[in-house]
């Protein structure tokens, strides 16, 4: 979960990329709403 609030929509995408490249599924999941939908 983020330690500070995310204020810009684009930051969510940037953080997704960072979490991916750090192989951090917890950080990835924390970027989604509890009932989010995701496709691949």
């Amino acid at each position, binding site marked *: 979960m983020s330690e500070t609030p*995310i204020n810009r929509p684009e930051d969510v995408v940037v953080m997704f990329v960072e979490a991916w490249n750090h192989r951090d599924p917890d950080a990835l999941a924390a970027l989604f709403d509890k009932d989010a939908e995701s496709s691949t």
Partner: protein
Amino acid sequence: MTGLWWHTRAKIRSARAYGLTRIFKESSLQATDLRVKRLSDEIAVVHAHEAHWLGVSRRDHHAAAPLERAVIRRSSDAGGLAMRRRQLPIELLRRQLRDQERAGEADQRRRSMRAFAAQERGPSRARMNEFAFHPEAEVDLIEIWDSSPRTASMPPIASATTSPRRFGGSFELPTKVIDGMT
């Protein structure tokens, strides 16, 4: 793009954990050409190209950069903003749109787009919520994408070799804000 859909944060986490350790363990990801469209005070759409997936499953694989769309909303539960993410065959839709317009069939565009979208594996109409777009809205968002100027290419945002950083820092990127969120 596989067409698989995951629902709920927990299932997304589980699927990503598998993918990151088994399928994409040697890949790196870049996001380029970020564009933001604010739909309301609470909801925004971010477009980006995700590119350079390398070393997928022991193959040196450099995939084409698909267009990603993330729907972002304010959420007290997830650090201020949270994502509802969809990945769409935007390039295919755009190509079909251009083909139709070139053939003088623009007046039939929305009907055919609806038929095309219905073939995709996605949420049923009954399961659609405010974050899953109606097929006609998809066409409108494609037009938004096409009408906004592209930004210059940018270097990788992060790589697997960079030092881990907890989230919450500031980012200065050449982002195109179509209708900026304050």
